[in-house]
Structure formats: C-alpha cells, structure tokens
C-alpha cells in the first residue's frame, strides 16, 4: 500500500490506500476559506476589543495578540464568511463584503 504525502496535484496512484491521512495533526493545513462568498472587514477605529467575535468565530479565524483583535488581520485561509462575528459585534464594526470586491487580491 502506498504511503505517499497528499497534494492536490497528485494522481490516484499517489494516494494513500484507504484514504487515510498518514501525517498526524495536519487539519491546520486544510484551507477551508475557499467556501467564502462574504469576507468580514473590521473597522479598527470602532472596535472596542471586547473579543466577542473571537469567542464566537466557529473556525478560529480571528487572531488575538495581547488581548486585542484590532489591527490584526483575519485568518482568511480558514474564515468561512459565515458572518457570525459581524452579527455578534456589539458596536457593529464588522461589515461582510462580497468576495468579488477583492478580486484583485485573489
């Protein structure tokens, strides 16, 4: 049975038999942000760093440094665009913008 490493360019011959993931603890490498149609954009001026968005984000896509989220970019590789952060924010400083607005960046 083959025991090769995963890659999206690999053919079926290179897959590990049984569809197992031979490397442990690699969920972090699985980019799930591709599902996103809306992207959260925070107004750092208005943010009061209450950390509600960080608590509620279902995918750990909001990063905290020194008990602050303001000024720290979202982890867009994993953000699904679910909008929970925007809905929960008490000062409504997060806007969900369509991904098409960011086509140049993408």
């Amino acid at each position: 049975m083959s025991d090769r490493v995963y890659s999206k360019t690999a053919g079926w011959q290179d897959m590990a038999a049984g569809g197992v993931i031979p490397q442990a603890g690699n969920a972090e490498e699985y980019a799930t942000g591709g599902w996103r149609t809306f992207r959260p954009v925070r107004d750092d001026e208005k943010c009061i760093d209450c950390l509600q968005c960080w608590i509620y984000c279902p995918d750990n896509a909001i990063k905290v440094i020194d008990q602050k989220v303001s000024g720290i970019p979202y982890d867009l590789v994993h953000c699904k665009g679910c909008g929970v952060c925007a809905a929960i924010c008490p000062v409504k400083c997060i806007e969900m913008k369509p991904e098409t607005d960011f086509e140049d960046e993408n």
Partner: protein
Amino acid sequence: MGKVMPLEGNNAIAEAMRQINPDVVAAYPITPSTEIVQTFAKFVADGKVTTNFVAVESEHSAMSACTAAAAAGGRVMNATSANGLALMWEILYITASLRQPVVLNLVNRALSGNINIHCDHSDGMGARDSGWIQIYGENAQEGYDNCIQCVAISEREDVRLPSMNCIDGFFVSHAYEMVEVEEDAAVQEWIGPYKPVRPLLDIKNPYTVGPLDLWDYYFEHKRNQLSAYPNAKEAIIEEGKRFGQAFGREYGLMECVDLEDAEVAVVALGSTAGMCKDVVADLRSKGVKAGLLKLRVFRPFPDAEIVAALRNCKAVAVFDRAASYGASYGPLYSEVAAAMYTRGANVPCVNIIYGLGGREIRPDQIADVYGKLNDIKTTGQPADPVSYVGVRG
C-alpha cells in the same frame, strides 16, 4: 493430516474460525447464520480461543465494531445473513473503503419482504457494489476451506480488502456433511501471523482514518481502491493454489465441469452448482454435450475468464438465485452477458431466475433448462431471455 468429521455448514465455518482464532469477533445472531456465532461464543467461553468476543445490539454495531477493531490492528471476523447484512450496509462500504481485511461469513438468505428465512442470494447480490470480495461455496467443505482462504486473501499487502465467505442458508448451513478439518497448527501455519498495516493502536505513528473526503480527493481515493481488485483476483488464484499444495484441495476463480467441448452450458453459484454436476454427468452419459461453469468468485468479477470458458458453447443459461427489481435480468446474468458482448463472444445466453425464498430446484428442472438450450442450439431461435423456473402459474 486432517480429520474427517460430520459437520453442518455453520459448524464447519465455526470450526475454521476456532482454528483461525481471530483477535475480535463482533456479531449479532440472525437465522440461518446464528449457529456460527453461537458455536464460536462457546469456544470463547470454554477458553478454546483467545478472541475478544463483542456482543452487540445490532448488525450495524457488529460491523462498526469489526471495522474499528480491524483499523485498530486486529484480525477480525463476523457472520450474518439477509436483513442482518442489510443493516450493515452503511458500514460495508466503509470497511472496503478503509481497506480493512475483515472476513464476514455470509449465510445467504432471502431479504424481506415478505419475511423469509430461507436461501436465496438477494443479500449477497445486494451488497455486490460495496467493495467486498465475494466467494461462494458449494458445500460445507468449501465453506470451511473458503473461510481460511478469505483470511489470507484479504490480508495480502496488495489487497487489504474485506471478504464475504458465502454459503447457502439451510441447504448448506444446516445440512450435515463429511468435512475434512485440518490440524489446528497446520491452519495457523498456513494463514501465518497477522501483520496489521498502520494499526491505530500504534500510538507512536499516529494517522487519521476516515477523514472528510470531498470533491478534491474522493474520486482519486475511489480510483485507488478500484486498483486493488485485479490484485485480489490474482491473490485468490495464488492462495487457492497454495491451499491445494498444503491440504490437497485446490481452488480457482471457478470450476469448469466438462466445458472443453460443451455445446450447452449453465452458469451457477453455490449449492445449485453441485446439483448441476449430477445433471451434467447424467446428460453426458446420454450423449448430450453439456457443461457447467460453477462460479466461485463473484467479486472481483472474473469476466475474461468466464468468457474464455464459455465462448465455444452454442447456448448458455445463467442461473440467478436473486432478482434485480426493475432491471430486465438477474444480477449474475447481466454481468455474464455484458462480459460476453464486450469480449465479442456471440453465444446466445438466457437467464433463469429460480429458487427465491428457499424454493427448491430439482435435477429434472435443471435438465429441462439444458433441453431448452439444445433447442436454441439446433433451431438458432432466440428463446425467452428470462424464464422463472419453479414458480407456480
């Protein structure tokens, strides 16, 4: 040297399981396979095996426990029939997809409705696309021999697929026959110690089993799984030969009875093939060039070998002990006919559906089928493509 003893088909399989001494057996009783597990549970209680016996509350749980135990690194076995197999459905696919070499003894029985506990092949045929190897035995001896071979075939490094050891319910499972049972040590030596591949209990080398597998990998994984079936076919041939060298009973993908010069031939699975042998011998004594293809391995389907064996016949009947509801033909016929057509064998083939729900088939009915094949041979007239033998009306 083996010991010849009178055994029911179920007991013969339980005996093989005792000699194999698997690490885990998880099962839930269902007629007509109950005796296999019941007898084996006694072996466990009496300390004749070191197996961890898991009494579960359903067949779904039984196959779940078996698949998980195999993933953990154990040699695992199980037994069921009909609706029990149907309740395992979801897990059957998972066992095969995860490439776990579980061996399931399937005592073939009709699926409800209506409720029926007797033999037909609707259970095995229903599971034909789940990815399991399927080997059909003719009698108790073959049930015993195939059980041992399934272990070796499934566990081969280039196969690692689960297998079903099928015998006909009641006709074989509950009928006493003289069975040659080999020495315990010889069986253990023949199967060898179990070498698990990536056991989950090897905590120093962690990996993930059964992850989410979407459009980005699933197709490649399934294509990868498909590549194991040609290996399985080779493994069945090689292990069948090796079994013959060790114990004197050699096995292949099929058994060809008088097929070299046969003009009219029948394809059959399971115990009916045994009856066909008598009919062929009788017809041969009367000068009819009759032959039989007793198919042993239904999955992987040996299409090239079947066509090679049948291509010189003038008319062929494929016996299905199962119907495929809404399809035009029975499952075995569909595959044999497709193989013949694809490989350019222009032999008229008819489909016989028989024996549903344990209805017996008699030698004179089989002889009638050969008679009809003789008509097709001489008149060249296409007969009814499907006929139902033994049904009233």
